[in-house]
């Protein structure tokens, strides 16, 4: 068989071009932005799939998230304010090679100190918040310095010590707010301290608006940190230690002192976050006021590639997520905690830069393949994309239909109708949809070689069998469970929960058919067959 150029794809052809475009990609600011945005998009897609599998509607979720955030743009800035501080704190420590996951604790200490100074010390109008913020920063800094000293002089891993200090700080502040400093007057489920004096409050930027002076302070802190890292001796030393501790030590930098100071300064910035929240938003210390700003700071720093201006980008993005999350929960009924899932996924994707490079390479290869041999490439490409869309859409319809049928199923249970009948009704929809997927895959692959056809057939036939067999088997097993003394009631009563196992089966089905697509195409191309 003569091997012509197009049949060698995607492995040999155009390697230089791919290399060149990769070089373009890996250099400079644009690459970092692409990296961050790519990670965000990937995370949103995966989180969307998870939502589908759990029976939520991801389109409605994302739509309402965006609508909620954009209809209140001031909320984005307001929510981003503490995240800028904590993000800067994490990023600054990271520049020294330290991983400060203790921003949460440092923030609590800073908040409590600011609340105490705001409530108990009388000072004139402008000086009062400044003093409160400064002392809060020092307190947060000292809290961070504990971990820094332990790291520098005792070699204690900062990840462990900062987390432990988080718990300690949260317990101490909670104790203060529910004991010695507790304000008993208002009816409030959370322990809280007395309100700060009006002189200490950070003014709002505009009336009837959430954004307060803390946001300006945050922007100034970005400038200060950028200046500190790039233009001062200590900043340079910190970056040197982060880059290579041994070399820095050889060059005469006291790396221990630098490490300790780094966590101290980082803690100080995190303390600012607490102070700005107390003085600008809450007006007092309320236990549990932070929905994990310290941990959000990690996402922000990771997303911003630990650069001060990147932190601003990351904080604004996360502020957008947080601002829209309420609307997402109320309208799309997706729990707010889904934001945490998205954040975790973003961090995982940013942590794996090679994944993005790999994906970009793939995209390049496909693009050049289509360019080089569009007659063969286009149908394959289109069927794959269509198969994907149909697969996921069908999956979404399947889960929502299932949700509607759950009430019917429960009613039929109450009316004494046969269980199996309603089960089959539910399953028929699933089978129908999976049949469409299988058919689409089958038609597209019929034109290929034997392997692809067989694989597709296996997928198309096996999946419905699995889907129909699982509930039937389980309902058939019900009496057996009972005779064994194990209660099957959670299975038989909680119809609502059926969507989880079914969703998992569906996800596996999509994965398997995708894999067969891929294997098929790869086989076809490499062996030299025409799909």
């Amino acid at each position: 068989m003569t091997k012509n150029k197009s049949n060698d794809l995607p492995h040999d052809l155009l390697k230089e071009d791919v290399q060149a475009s990769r070089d373009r990609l890996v250099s400079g600011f644009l690459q970092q932005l692409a990296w961050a945005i790519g990670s965000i998009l990937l995370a949103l897609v995966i989180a969307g799939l998870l939502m589908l599998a759990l029976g939520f509607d991801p389109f409605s979720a994302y739509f309402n998230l965006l609508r909620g955030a954009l209809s209140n743009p001031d909320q984005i800035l307001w929510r981003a304010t503490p995240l800028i501080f904590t993000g800067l704190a994490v990023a600054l420590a990271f520049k020294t090679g330290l991983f400060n996951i203790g921003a949460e604790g440092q923030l609590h200490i800073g908040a409590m100190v600011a609340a105490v100074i705001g409530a108990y010390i009388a000072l004139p109008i402008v000086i009062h918040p400044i003093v409160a913020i400064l002392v809060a920063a020092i307190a947060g800094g000292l809290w961070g310095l504990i971990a820094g000293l332990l790291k520098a002089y005792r070699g204690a891993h900062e990840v462990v010590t900062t987390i432990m200090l988080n718990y300690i700080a949260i317990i101490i502040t909670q104790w203060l707010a529910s004991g010695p400093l507790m304000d008993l007057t208002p009816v409030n489920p959370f322990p809280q301290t007395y309100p700060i004096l009006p002189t200490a409050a950070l003014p709002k930027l505009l009336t009837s608006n959430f954004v307060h002076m803390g946001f300006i302070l945050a922007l100034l802190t970005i400038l200060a940190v950028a200046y500190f890292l790039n233009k001062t001796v200590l900043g340079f030393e910190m970056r040197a230690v982060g880059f290579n501790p041994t070399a820095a030590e050889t060059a005469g930098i006291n790396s221990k002192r630098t490490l300790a100071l780094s966590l101290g300064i980082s803690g100080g910035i995190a303390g600012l976050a607490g102070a700005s929240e107390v003085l600008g938003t809450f007006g007092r210390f309320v236990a549990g006021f932070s929905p994990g700003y310290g941990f959000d700071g990690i996402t922000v720093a990771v997303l911003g590639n630990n650069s001060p201006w990147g932190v601003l980008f990351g904080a604004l993005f996360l502020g957008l997520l947080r601002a829209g999350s309420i609307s997402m929960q109320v309208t799309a009924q997706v729990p707010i905690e889904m934001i945490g899932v998205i954040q975790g996924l973003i961090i995982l994707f940013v942590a794996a830069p090679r994944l993005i490079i790999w994906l970009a390479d793939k995209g390049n290869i496909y693009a050049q393949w289509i360019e080089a041999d569009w007659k063969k490439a286009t149908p394959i490409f289109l069927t794959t994309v269509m198969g994907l869309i149909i697969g996921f859409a069908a999956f979404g319809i399947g889960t929502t239909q299932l949700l509607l049928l759950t009430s019917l199923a429960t009613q039929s249970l109450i009316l004494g109708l046969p269980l199996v009948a309603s089960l089959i009704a539910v399953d028929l929809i699933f089978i129908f949809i999976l049949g469409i997927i299988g058919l689409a895959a089958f038609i597209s692959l019929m034109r290929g070689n034997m392997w692809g056809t067989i694989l597709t057939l296996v997928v198309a036939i096996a999946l419905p069998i699995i889907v129909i067999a699982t509930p039937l088997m389980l309902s058939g097993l019900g009496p057996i469970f009972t005779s064994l003394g194990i209660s099957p009631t959670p299975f038989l009563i909680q119809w609502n929960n059926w969507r989880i196992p079914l969703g998992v089966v569906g996800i596996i089905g999509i994965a398997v058919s995708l894999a067969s697509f891929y294997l098929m195409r790869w086989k076809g191309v490499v062996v030299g067959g025409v799909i």
Partner: protein
Amino acid sequence: MQAGQIDILLLVGIIGYTTLIAATPLILAALGGMFSERSGVVNIALEGMMLMGALMGAVGSYFTGNPWIGIFYAIIVGGLMGLIHGLVSVKLKGNQIVSGTGIIIFAAGFTTVMLWVVWGQKGVSDPVIPIPEIVIPPLLGVPILGPMFGSQSPLVYIMFALIPICWFVLYRTSFGLRLRAAGEDPSTLDSAGVNVETVRMIAVILSGCLAGLAGAYLSIGFGSSFSRNMVAGRGFIALAALIFGNWTPFGVLIAGLFFGFLDGLKIAIQVTPALGFLYPFNLWLRMIPYLGVIIALGIIRRSVPPKAIGVPYIKERGV
């Protein structure tokens, strides 16, 4: 017994019991961390893996009515988390600590979402069937051993059995040798013809399985429900136990028992009426294990971590 007078034997027995129940998840997770870290992969994701294990343990027990299936689910989901951590930090050469943090944040969000999906609430799950305890009637009357082992979860015995098994795997099998070599000197292992990445992947997945088991102990071994963020830093205490135990199975046992003792004190005080004068300090008692970890890490001599820990192994640079 008169008020104010403390039955020492009973108190020792109760403290022994709370030490065991608090130490079991720590030791299980730390053993998991040991496999991962000895192979050269930092695993701060233990916390997240435990949380997922705790959730899936409860979910499995809830849906099937059989807590052992819950344990199975927990081990599988822990291994899956380990797989993700391995893919990101071993295969894709990502930063291991960043990857671990990602898993922790993911797990914290995902478990709460699942609480809402399965049980319709965000705080605590419905009660699920826990693993039945092994009761040894003749021991029940014995002073100190009675409270400790008279009626104890089988997972505690499994934990004790796993320590020599882990020691054997780590020091007496070729897999263990390769695993340790991957953590100390991966390039030598590579030149010996062993795939460093595969060894590390297996180690991280194994680590996740053990952490998942540790999490399941929290939800269906000791307790009988899953609650939000129920791991409460135990994954990190397990990491501290691993460091304190110098990355060896028996060191992990001792360190884990020590931290378990600190963690269990508050339960011991709650169930001992004679120590009632300590009740108002409940919040402070919760702080004991966290403070203990910091003090312990502060006073130990520098322990020696595996040499290649935290560094992704890159076989050759360039394409």
